[in-house]
């Protein structure tokens, strides 16, 4: 028995999903403990400091910086609009006066006699944090936000782009072997979280965007298609802020690869329910994987697993997925765990295991190249 190198992705039919919904800066929390909330409900809100606009007022007026404070028409804390005179020079005998005018609307925050600069602070930007899932508020974090909990089905994807969205879960096809094509996407799917087993094709993504589908969840995606959607080649897997009008999540990886049967069957059993998805992925220290959460208000107390990937134990019979070529995407069970490292075809010495694949063959792969199939 040994530890798996790569933790599996969580696929749980029923779990207690708990999510912290926090503001980036302190603000007002709008919910109380015990409140039932929808994905849309505002949990907390606040205002972010406005943008800062520096204005070289002394140089605009042609005076020394030290003279500026005495020439100010508006003072710190005064509100100004674009074009308002904020400072005026004395001129010569009151003639030929020069002025500095506000270049942005806001409030005067600082007047510097050292540099002759005036800082204007623009209007504050309101920000709101919503619940993201239907559930119950179980904890309020004063000035920060709240914790929302719900029994839910929970699936982690391997990679995604686009942020938080929610909508009814819809199957594009009941066939676990089919790719997602443009033909399967209709106007009726507007706002839906749509899933299919195979690869999401470029045409399907385009059709989904055109029909304002909330999110697509598939087994794989081609790198070239992702590049098309983003408009650039993705260098590092830190995503979630893409403004592409849709959230895309793949559960297995890049290329033509089918969704694991267990994941597909679970999604198929949840069709029609409200799903909340987040494509945000961060593959760095503190890994974040995309998520698909389907609240199960009727399944309280059926929790089978806690949220989040865990490092499991590899032992004979453990179901695993191979996550690197030449057997990428194949699933099977561990059939042998040799103690001694073996020499790979690449020439490297590595600890290996044998996997009995679903279709019958038995292959040897490095332990680093499998992940547990968890649930």
């Amino acid at each position, binding site marked *: 028995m040994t530890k798996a190198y790569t933790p599996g992705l969580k696929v749980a039919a029923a779990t207690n999903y708990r999510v912290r919904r926090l503001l980036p800066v302190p603000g007002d929390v709008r919910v109380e403990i015990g409140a039932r909330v929808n994905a849309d409900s505002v949990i907390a809100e606040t205002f972010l*400091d406005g943008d800062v606009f520096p204005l070289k007022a002394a140089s605009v007026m042609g005076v020394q910086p030290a003279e500026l404070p005495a020439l100010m028409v508006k003072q710190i804390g005064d509100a100004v609009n674009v074009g308002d005179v904020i400072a005026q020079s004395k001129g010569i005998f009151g003639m030929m006066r020069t002025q500095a005018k506000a270049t942005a609307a806001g409030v005067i925050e600082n007047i510097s006699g050292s540099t002759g600069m005036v800082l204007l602070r623009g209007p504050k930007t309101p920000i709101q944090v919503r619940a993201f899932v239907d559930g119950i508020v179980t904890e309020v974090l004063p000035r920060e936000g709240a914790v929302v909990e719900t029994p839910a089905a929970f699936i982690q994807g391997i990679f995604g782009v686009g942020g938080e969205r929610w909508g009814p879960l819809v199957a594009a096809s009941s066939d676990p072997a089919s790719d997602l094509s443009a033909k399967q996407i209709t106007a009726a799917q507007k706002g839906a979280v749509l899933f299919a087993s195979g690869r999401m094709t470029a045409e399907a993504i385009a059709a989904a965007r055109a029909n304002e589908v909330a999110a697509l969840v598939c087994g794989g995606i081609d790198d070239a298609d992702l590049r098309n959607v983003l408009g650039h080649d993705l*260098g590092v897997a830190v995503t979630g802020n893409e403004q592409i009008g849709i959230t895309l999540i793949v559960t297995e990886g890049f290329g033509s690869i089918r969704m694991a049967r267990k994941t597909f069957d679970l999604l198929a059993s949840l069709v029609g329910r409200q799903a909340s998805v987040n494509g945000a992925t961060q593959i760095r220290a503190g890994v974040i994987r995309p998520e698909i959460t389907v609240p199960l208000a009727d399944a309280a107390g059926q929790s089978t697993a806690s949220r989040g990937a865990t490092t499991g134990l590899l032992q004979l019979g453990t179901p695993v997925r191979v996550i690197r070529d*030449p057997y990428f995407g194949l699933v099977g069970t561990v059939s042998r765990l040799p103690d001694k490292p073996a020499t790979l075809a*690449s020439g490297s010495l590595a600890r290996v295991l044998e996997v009995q694949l679903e279709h019958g063959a038995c292959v040897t792969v490095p332990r680093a*190249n499998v992940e547990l199939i968890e649930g």
Partner: protein
Amino acid sequence: MRIVATDCGSTTTKAILIEEIDGAFRQTFRAEAPTTVEEPLADVTIGVTNAITELQELSGYRLVAEGGTIIRRPSGSMGDGCDLYISTSSAGGGLQMMVAGVVREMTAESAKRAALGAGAIVMDTIASNDRRRPHEQIQRIRELRPDMVLLSGGTDGGDGKKVVELAELIAPARPRPRFGGEYRLPLIFAGNRAVRSEVERIFAGDGFALSVVDNLRPTLEQENLGPARERIHDVFLEHVMAHAPGYDRLMAWTNAPIMPTPGAVGDILQTIARERNINVVGVDIGGATTDLFSVFGGVFNRTVSANLGMSYSISNVCAEAGMEQVLRWVHLDMDERELRNRVKNKMIRPTTIPQTHEALVFEQAVAREALRLAFAQHRAFATKLKGVQQQRTVGDTFRQDDGEGSIVDPMLLDLLVASGGVLSHAPRFEQTFLMMIDSFEPTGFTAIAKDSIFMMPHLGVLASVHPRAAMEVFERDCLIPLGWCAAPKGEVRLGKPALSFEIRGDQGVAAQGTLVGGEVRLVRLRADQRATIEVRPDRGLDMGAGAGKAARRDITGGEVGVLIDARGRSLQFPSAAADRRAAVSSWLKVAEVHEAQ
């Protein structure tokens, strides 16, 4: 004497044991355990204790007490425990800084050098002339979440207005620190001393913890990075580390201050360069970043290529270099679409390793491009001070540049040190050797070595408390000599005579030959064999003695030997795809990079 050293990386905590055996210090055991900085454990000392417990099991010495603390033994005792415990850390993403200076090429660059030299990742450099408008600069500052800020600008007694302007931009932008709202963001001011009081007034609010040190560019001709670097280390310990989970305990355990990992690597390389009086370049290629260190004529430089790496950043290497550039190193048939998907799959599952020969060949091709790009960035950064009137002094004579202003001149490079997964774990020494030569393109005679188990961080800290132990372990156990590269500078004509060489040495070593442009030749020379090599380049090519003139060097061998390289600098590929593939194939075959398939 028994020394335990740990390096707490983002994913793995590595522990080594160093012992004094028969009067000499040797590294004897090595162990590792997952780093435990993040939830659910959120205490770095758990990972440290786990790694040292494994060290205990391997060595048979009792090193960890029941409560999980490290056992320390009294001086001169032969009992359980260790005499010294030291550590470095890059966990949680290392030290992330924002730097600012008035002129991008002058004070801002010096500030960047200070931050990088202290082991930081520089998130952005703000300068009065960085071509961004003030509100764009403020917006950028607001987006960043640095651990600390270094502000410089102005020479002492020079213009102070610009640096005050910068301060006035940074203060209202209120950059949010990584560690949450209650944390006061450390800001170090190392600029014109005449405006200190103004700067103090500007940052007097609640959001900043200001400290002031000597100007890092007191005059245009002089860079004084020491005080700023030291202050960065102090602030790293007092603020950043103190907020990282478990570091308060870890700091209490160590005999020397915990250093950022790259800072420690820089220290050991500087020590080596000083002790041996040589010019050194060291590289550490990781999954996310590639760190490059150089010491030329005693001047130390470090760069971090933030998105050049072999797993998290592998896709970025292919994007930046271009797939065509990557594939020029590949001698096998590969489908580009398939490769692109494989690259992305490695990015999202970064811990996987190449299983097939083809996958290894491709990964090493990517590594060559990552190293090449990182070295180009390093050379562009490691320049003479800009803004200085060109008046060379005796002290400047060693700072010869190659016309591009870089002080990192491949012709003057004595030792090239490789470390990091793809270089350290390559199945054959020959692979590491050729990857280094292909990427760095050294000219003249250059020794190449690899860090056996990435021990340099540990030895960097050890050098601060026990320099002799650090040097002895470095010489005996850390570096594995791979061999030498002998390559003339200049463009070769493919297939035309390029050079002749002769090697004569002890134990019957003898080889000679002539090479045409585009050829390489490997002469085996073991680590215990000495020889003299003479290379006579063709007209227009230079081995360091001048164009067309013979050059000699006394050398000691290594695991691979001597590669005589007549491929030209820059390295030339045949233009036709089939010819290129044949050429690469022959280089790999001659250098015995892969076992016969």
